[in-house]
């Protein structure tokens, strides 16, 4: 069954986010020979249209409006609903990012549709599209589908492979004029705090610290390792509760759930609530003084030792081998 699939792409600091390309790849499967339509909205976004073709869009709709300069669910939902109304899609996908999480329930409510949040996998089973999603922060999984009508899902970053970039692909770009009424919420300011610039939920590599880092200064060797690897820095609840770092870094059942290619746990004991947030990472490295620490039960590779000795050595070793390549 060929479907018309709408993908709402997301822009962060004037660039399309990787999860939007992952959504295009998922859309291609769901479209089953139908059409994949990429949508990008903002104050000035037409320059981003071509890239959506390269990653699988058959058609691109741009929505430009000064009221879309900063993201608000109020403004963006008005724009998105007008696009949905003119396209009449069979399915809608977007990233399960801060924006996706914020806006998708509003759209689903307006459209009176179901919504499958935070999908990590997609299967096509005859006429059905079945999504896999974690529950209990990844302690279990469920397979879920929309009963009838519009298929609407948000997909978790880092779980669906992007299509190979094909710069020869191109297509029709349509600019959709939208009317946006007064906004009820206004963004006054955005204070950038994420130091490395790599967002935890999309990071391919994460270096995380637990109580074993002992102080906020104790994160320094972790930051240095992260810098060499282009990684994001995260933390366990223990480290956050002890005030070694900001709560926005917390990984676990309360906090963020992450699935990077590589997770390096430094001085983290491995409480169930932390494991729930990271144990589905592809490869896990544990560095801990205590050979009995629970984290070693989920680690692919472990080093028993003091993180303040091991982490700087690891940073130097990576510097060496990454430079020679």
């Amino acid at each position, binding site marked *: 069954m060929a479907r018309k699939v709408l993908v709402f792409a997301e822009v962060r600091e004037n660039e399309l986010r990787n999860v939007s390309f992952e959504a295009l790849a998922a859309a291609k499967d769901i479209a089953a020979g139908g059409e994949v339509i990429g949508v990008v909205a903002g104050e000035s976004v037409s320059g981003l249209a071509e890239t959506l073709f390269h990653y699988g869009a058959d058609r691109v709709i741009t929505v430009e409006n000064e009221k879309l300069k900063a993201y*608000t*669910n*109020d403004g963006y939902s008005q724009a998105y609903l007008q696009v949905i109304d003119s396209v009449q899609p069979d399915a809608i996908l977007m990233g399960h990012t801060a924006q996706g*999480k*914020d806006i998708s*329930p*509003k759209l*689903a*409510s*307006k459209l009176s*549709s*179901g*919504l*499958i*949040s*935070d999908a990590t996998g997609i299967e096509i089973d005859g006429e059905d599209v*079945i999504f896999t999603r974690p*529950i209990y*922060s*990844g*302690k*279990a*999984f469920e*397979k*879920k*589908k929309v*009963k009838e009508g519009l298929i609407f899902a948000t997909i978790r970053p880092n779980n669906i492979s992007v299509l190979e970039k094909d710069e020869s692909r191109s297509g029709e770009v349509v600019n959709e004029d939208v009317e946006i009424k007064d906004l*009820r*919420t206004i*963004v*006054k*300011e*955005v*204070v*950038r705090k*994420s130091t490395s610039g790599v967002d*935890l939920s999309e990071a391919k*590599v994460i270096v995380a610290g637990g109580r074993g880092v002992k102080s906020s200064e104790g994160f320094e060797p972790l930051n240095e390792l992260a810098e060499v690897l282009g990684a994001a820095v995260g933390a366990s609840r223990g480290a956050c509760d002890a005030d070694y770092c900001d*709560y*926005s870094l917390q990984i676990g059942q*309360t906090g963020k759930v992450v699935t990077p*290619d*590589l997770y390096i746990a430094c001085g983290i004991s491995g*409480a*169930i*609530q932390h494991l729930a947030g990271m144990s589905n990472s*592809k*490869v896990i*490295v544990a560095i801990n003084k205590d050979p009995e620490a629970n984290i*070693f039960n*989920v*680690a*692919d*590779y472990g*080093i028993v030792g003091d993180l303040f*000795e091991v982490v700087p*050595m*690891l940073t130097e*070793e990576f510097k060496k*081998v990454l430079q020679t390549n």
Partner: protein
Amino acid sequence: MNIYVIMKRTFDTEEKIVIENGQISDEGVEFIINPYDEYAIEEAIRLRDDNGGEVTVVSIGDEEVEKELRTALAMGADKAVLINNEDIEDSDQFTTASLLAAYFEDKEYDLILGGNVSNDNSTGQVGPRLAEQLDIPYVTTITKFELDGEKVTIERDVEGDVEVIETSLPLLVTAQQGLNDPRYPSLPGIMKAKKKPLEEIDYDDLDIDEDEIEAKTETVEIFLPPKKEAGKILEGELDEQVQELVKLLRQEAKVI
């Protein structure tokens, strides 16, 4: 000020998950107030203390939820409401939001607070869906809330960055970790809570048909992730272990 909190009862975060007959078993499981909802309750109590008014905590579930509602009352909420959904067989986030919307239809509310996600299903849908059904604005993942008359200034966490939002009442907000430190119920609080009103409403009492709120999605299967096998603990001198690890990550695991 009429302040409402929507609260969910969830598994304790330390619980392991057991599947029996295709369903998640709750046998012997410890339940708690969803941790993000605790922030919402705490914030509601503080706002009432500063501005006057009343805090009502609303939850959906069976009679068991009374325990968590009493805990919320012991923290300092004034009233609790349990919407009993035991007779509804087919329910999802659309159902929950619709039940709540039906409850709020004839209520006067200035502010509704909730957690930004529950730690079981973690969809984060119910708050925004409810706001949309009530046609009021909403702000998710908030870490600071300031009220000046009708004017509201909010800080919200956006993937580690802080967004400063201006809006006004009536409003729905969902709490992120860092909003506050929820209090523990005090002994006098627990004693007082026993006498505070806890109303139980059957969904039949709401102006709603079961057909209208039937789930839009369905769960086909629930399963546990494959158990991870214990990995390789490296041995030898520390510098050799480090070299070995880098080699393994590059050549065996191929992640760097």
